């Protein structure tokens, strides 16, 4: 027990009467990778901010390396070696790599004038610590997300970090980048630096962590060595309920025409000879690494990526889909990966977002809409998809991720498409609502819709799809049946070279 980097005892925190943290105890050990998981709103971010000194606790004790801090200000936390890397990395896109790394150090030194040689020296030293090479004179906006993350880490190390807290560290990284990030992290571990990952992406979390800390409703509900946990147990601890994981089975009727038939699709470098069928009532998964062509396939089906060759048939009839309008006319709907910028009018009311695609059909004789009819339509969809809101007149941005995704779905379902392409349908959604969304997808398939689910969330694919197409370099390299595989097997196939 002599070796403790950080110990929190009985931490409480309330905001305007809401009890966000209710007696949290955690211990962080030096040189270990810890992982803090929990659903959105469970108190993860509040806890991090208390550790970083951004929020003041109401009650409880914080010990950093044996020293008690009755009051912990951000500067104390930094001096004690605690560094937080936020999801957006807090970098300046317009400044060079070197300046981004050195800026905090220069501020801390209280400099008024800039010595560019000093800036370069600081940056070189920082990058040497993690043994990576990034062009120092490149602007940060020109480097990859993975490099941005490394810049953020090297910046943290400059301040003699002993604990690096990373918020959603692996989102937006490809598998390969994650692996090299982990190598660097393992190197730092050997120097005794501890990490605390905060995440809700379960399979990655399990793969890298040594210690698990699970939060639910402001309490730590479970801690222990990572080997003791599997996905099922984590989900149980995080949600407090057993969520049944059953796969979706489907066999097309003998001799029926496929709802969608794609033959030899080819586009630039991104799609190469892609052919598949999608039947009524089927849920077909599409997976692959970033850059494998999975998003391009969706864009091609929705008329946003011009095809160089190949053709598409909808219900046995050739469909020339070269614009979004034609895709919609053919009965294809698309829920984009980035629902915030591509799928929703965030500032607009929930109701307006739902009827935006069908407003023409709701017009009366004079070309005017009747509020009663529009509201009827809105209420129907809010009920059917169980969108949790006190009032559909509120802007969409007031909703949680899962509910926003339902609004996007409602928008499309209102125009009754035959085929839905869902790109990352549960990215950034809680496990509880994720499951409800999966049920909804299965229900839609049961009603005769054909769905294409594009995802790199392996449990999600196994739970919802009856068939999974594996893409690599723009080609379908494998077709996998969920009942004939396991999570690990599929994960291994995904990253195979």
């Amino acid at each position, binding site marked *: 027990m002599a070796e403790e980097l950080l110990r929190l005892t009985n931490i409480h925190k309330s905001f305007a009467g809401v009890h966000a943290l209710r007696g949290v105890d955690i211990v962080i050990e030096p040189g270990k990778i810890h992982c803090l998981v929990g659903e959105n709103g469970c108190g993860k971010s509040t806890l991090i901010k208390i550790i970083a000194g951004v929020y003041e606790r109401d009650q409880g004790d914080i010990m950093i390396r044996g020293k008690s801090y009755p009051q912990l200000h951000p500067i104390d936390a930094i001096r004690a070696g605690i560094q937080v890397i936020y999801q*957006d990395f*807090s*970098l300046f*896109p317009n*400044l060079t790599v070197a*300046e981004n790394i050195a*800026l905090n150090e220069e501020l801390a030194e209280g400099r008024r004038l*800039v010595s560019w040689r000093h800036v370069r020296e600081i940056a070189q030293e920082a990058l040497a610590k993690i043994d990576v090479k990034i062009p120092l004179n490149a602007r940060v906006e020109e480097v990859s997300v993975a490099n941005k993350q490394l810049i953020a880490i090297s910046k943290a190390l400059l301040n003699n970090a002993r604990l690096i807290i990373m918020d959603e560290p692996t989102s937006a990284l490809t598998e390969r980048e994650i692996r090299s990030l982990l190598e660097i992290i393992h190197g730092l571990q050997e120097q005794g630096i501890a990490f605390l990952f905060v995440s809700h992406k379960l399979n990655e979390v399990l793969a890298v962590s040594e210690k698990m800390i699970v939060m639910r409703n402001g309490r730590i509900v479970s801690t222990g060595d990572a080997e003791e946990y599997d996905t099922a147990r984590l989900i149980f601890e995080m949600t407090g309920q057993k969520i049944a994981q059953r796969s979706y089975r489907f066999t097309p009727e003998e001799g029926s025409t496929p709802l969608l038939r794609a033959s030899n699709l080819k586009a630039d470098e991104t799609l190469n000879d892609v052919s598949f069928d999608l039947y009524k009532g089927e849920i077909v998964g599409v997976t692959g690494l970033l*850059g494998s062509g999975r998003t391009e396939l969706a864009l091609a089906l929705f008329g946003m990526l011009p095809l160089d060759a190949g053709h598409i048939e909808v219900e046995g009839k050739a469909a020339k889909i070269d614009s979004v309008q034609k895709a919609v006319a053919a009965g294809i709907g698309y829920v984009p990966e980035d629902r915030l910028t591509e799928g929703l009018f965030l500032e607009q009311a929930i109701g307006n977002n739902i009827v935006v695609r069908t407003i023409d059909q709701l017009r009366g004789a004079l070309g005017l809409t009747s509020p009663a009819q529009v509201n009827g339509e809105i209420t129907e969809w809010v009920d059917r998809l169980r969108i949790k809101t006190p009032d559909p007149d509120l802007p969409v941005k007031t909703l949680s991720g899962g509910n926003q995704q339902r609004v996007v779905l409602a928008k499309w379902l209102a125009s009754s498409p035959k085929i839905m392409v869902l790109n990352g349908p549960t990215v950034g959604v809680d496990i509880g609502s994720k499951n409800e969304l999966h049920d909804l997808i299965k229900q839609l398939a049961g009603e005769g819709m054909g769905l294409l689910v594009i995802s790199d969330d392996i449990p999600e694919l196994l739970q919802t799809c009856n068939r999974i197409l594996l893409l690599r370099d723009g080609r379908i390299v494998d077709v996998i049946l969920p009942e004939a595989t396991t999570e690990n097997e599929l994960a291994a196939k995904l990253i195979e070279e």
Partner: protein
Amino acid sequence: MNRILRSNEALVAITIVFLCLFIGLRNPVFFTVGNLFDLLRSSIVMGIFAMGVLIVIISGGIDVSFTAIAVFALYATTKLLLAFSPEAPIIVAFVIAALIGLGLGLINAFFIARFKLPTLIVTLGTLSMFHGFLLFAIGNQTIRRDVPPALTSFARSTLLTVPQTRGVANLHPGILITIGVVIFVWLLLSYTMLGRSIYALGGSREAAERAGFNIARIQYFIYGFVGLISGIAGMTFGSLARQANPQDMVGTELSVIAAVVLGGAQLTGGRGTVIGTLLGVILVVIANNSLILIGVPSVWQRVVIGIIILVGTGAPAIQAKRAGNAAFGLAE
């Protein structure tokens, strides 16, 4: 090397060279020392203004009130001198104008830093307010013949005299003010933490806050400084024109902003250089003054400037978009 050639500065510099060659080949007067001195004289005020605008744009803001500040400072200073000390040396006039400009700039800063209002809204408001207040409360008559004598003698002074085939060409010492401001702003932006904090603020306000920069203090500096040098620019304008006309300058703010944007500063903030801005100013000044030498009627000059701005700012944007699209295909 490729990167240097594709940079905005290079693009503007090449445009300037071609424009000069084009004009000069058709009318050799363009290549005389006299014309060069004229162009420099015309760049004096716009050059000072542009440095202020550059700083604001880098910080991610915009200021359209600087011309009102300039004319306010010029007119109020002239009135003050006439009333209290008509014989004061020219330096006193500049100090008073700079202080008036600083005060007005701090009013902008107050609204922007304290209430976090959008900078365009605040400065559109103060543009009207400052100018309106000037006309209503201080005066609306042009002071022409009876300007303080220091102004008149400054207007007539020369830094350099070069004999020409007909008469002599004189270079006005006002150019030294511009050069001073340019060097100061360049040092500020490149070699001080304050300057870097302006770039940081324009790059990402949130990250700047987290890094521990005092945003309000930076904004007070930015808008105060723009006010200060606008006051100096206003006084310079008046002493070149030997008059204080309360209707002068206001309305020219967009062409200064255009020159700065042409020089590569981006209205989204975080980007812009002193060199680029100077090139932008030179290009606009040449287009303004020299098209007449090749027989382009003055009404057409504005059209030509408009085209230069559209092409000059449009070409890099289209280039960036193409590069972005290419990356999109690769990185998904």
